[in-house]
């Protein structure tokens, strides 16, 4: 059994609870233990960095230090949490003076950063650590013929972490193929969903969501798959507002990749948090009815 320190992040507590539920259900089937960090704090999203950079690093370093204490690599399901944790870890390792400064603050919580662990996005655990062959072997209800638009979004890919191919990645498509679905190619897969502009610059964000939805629908997507709670909310919960603003009639469900993997593993939809969407997932579920009865 592989074990990780799990940093769910604020969104997964409520707004994206279905991501949390489906992550737990599917990792269990893959013999992975996600041990939640005991007292994690918010990663700061983009806002900390707008206000104070050192404070931003300090608060993210607190989570890293707790994972170090547990002796486990840190896994974040949210792309923003992942990006902030990854780069805090990297930058503090490269800058001992900054790390010293932050460790002075962390003393107040009996913690210390030493740079001894790695940070991963949840999807990396599936694709890289577990591997596609292992995932294929667990599929009992292949999502045959389901046309899925893999939506990478931004911060899972950018800024570049190492030497990976950030202009034409394939791992999301490969994962969807592994569970029997049909990944579609569409131009929006690496384009931004608007992120927090949905709250601060509504006109721009709705435009960005509109372009993404149109691009997926034009290529015949039945469902969009995401790996980030903010992408999910922007693409799904604001779909109605896009329809009002642009006179469109979008009704595309947006599910987390863990929910699709879970369906293919034969986990009952309810245990994957399916049913909490604002856009109906009925059509998606019709693709799996022909499989074996659920456990």
């Amino acid at each position: 059994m592989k074990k990780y320190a799990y940093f769910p992040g604020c969104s997964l507590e409520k707004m994206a609870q279905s991501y949390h539920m489906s992550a737990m259900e599917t990792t269990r089937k893959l013999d992975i233990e996600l041990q939640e960090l005991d007292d994690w704090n918010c990663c700061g999203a983009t806002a900390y960095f707008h206000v104070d950079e050192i404070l931003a690093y300090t608060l993210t370093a607190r989570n890293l230090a707790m994972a170090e204490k547990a002796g486990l690599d840190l896994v974040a399901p949210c792309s923003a949490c992942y990006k902030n944790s990854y780069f805090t870890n990297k930058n503090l390792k490269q800058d001992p003076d900054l790390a010293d400064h932050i460790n002075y603050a962390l003393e107040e919580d009996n913690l210390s950063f030493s740079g001894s662990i790695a940070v991963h996005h949840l999807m990396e655990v599936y694709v890289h650590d577990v591997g596609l062959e292992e995932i294929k072997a667990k599929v009992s209800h292949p999502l045959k013929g389901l046309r899925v638009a893999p939506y990478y979004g931004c911060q899972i890919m950018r800024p570049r972490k190492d030497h990976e191919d950030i202009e034409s990645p394939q791992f999301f498509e490969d994962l969807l193929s592994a569970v029997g679905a049909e990944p579609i190619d569409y131009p929006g897969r690496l384009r931004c969903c608007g992120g927090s502009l949905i709250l601060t610059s509504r006109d721009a964000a709705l435009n960005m969501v509109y372009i993404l939805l149109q691009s997926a629908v034009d290529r015949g997507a039945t469902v969009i798959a995401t790996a980030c709670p903010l992408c999910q909310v922007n693409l799904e919960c604001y779909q109605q507002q896009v329809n009002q603003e642009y006179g469109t009639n979008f009704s595309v469900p947006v599910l987390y990749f863990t929910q699709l993997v879970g369906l293919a593993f034969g986990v009952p939809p309810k245990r994957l948090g399916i049913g909490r969407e604002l856009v109906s997932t009925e059509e998606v579920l019709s693709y799996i009815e022909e499989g074996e009865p659920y456990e």
Partner: protein
Amino acid sequence: MATKPTFRQEISNLLFAAHGEPLKTCIQCGTCSGTCPAVEFMDHTPRQLIAMINADLKDEVLASNTFWYCASCFHCTARCPRDIDIAELMYAVKRYSIWHKTYPEDLIGPVFSGAFVKTIIRSGRSYEPVLATSYIFSFGPREFLKEATTATSMMVKGRIPVIPPRIKRLDNFKRVIGRIVPVGGPK
């Protein structure tokens, strides 16, 4: 006698781990502007903003909405042929404008970021309903109604937290912050 840094040097100083003055290496190719998904909403394209900083047009830069329309997608950063971290530059100008209180009054971005950070400092975690107050009143009645409809639909599906979350070791957490930003003691 020390000379006063230029605006370009001030901004370069705010770029994390940037050695020298990265903005000076900009060749004005416009890859950033061509890549940016929010460019059509900006007063100036990212390329123009860099040129303005390099020309020390401080007042014009700070009056621009450009950096507040940056969604941190890092596409410009990923593609810049001179390896300038342009998204990070947008953060730097945001911080500069917050510290100097020079942002235009009708922008929600700076108010939202302030409210977000205050929420975290108070409780350790983010809480959507409190954040909403930072922008909801700046909407017109039509936008307000649309937002209320979205929020209500999410609440019905159990996706809006009712009780504000807080971390357990909050006193320690506040003392950690106090060692970085020493304001008014731990409480």
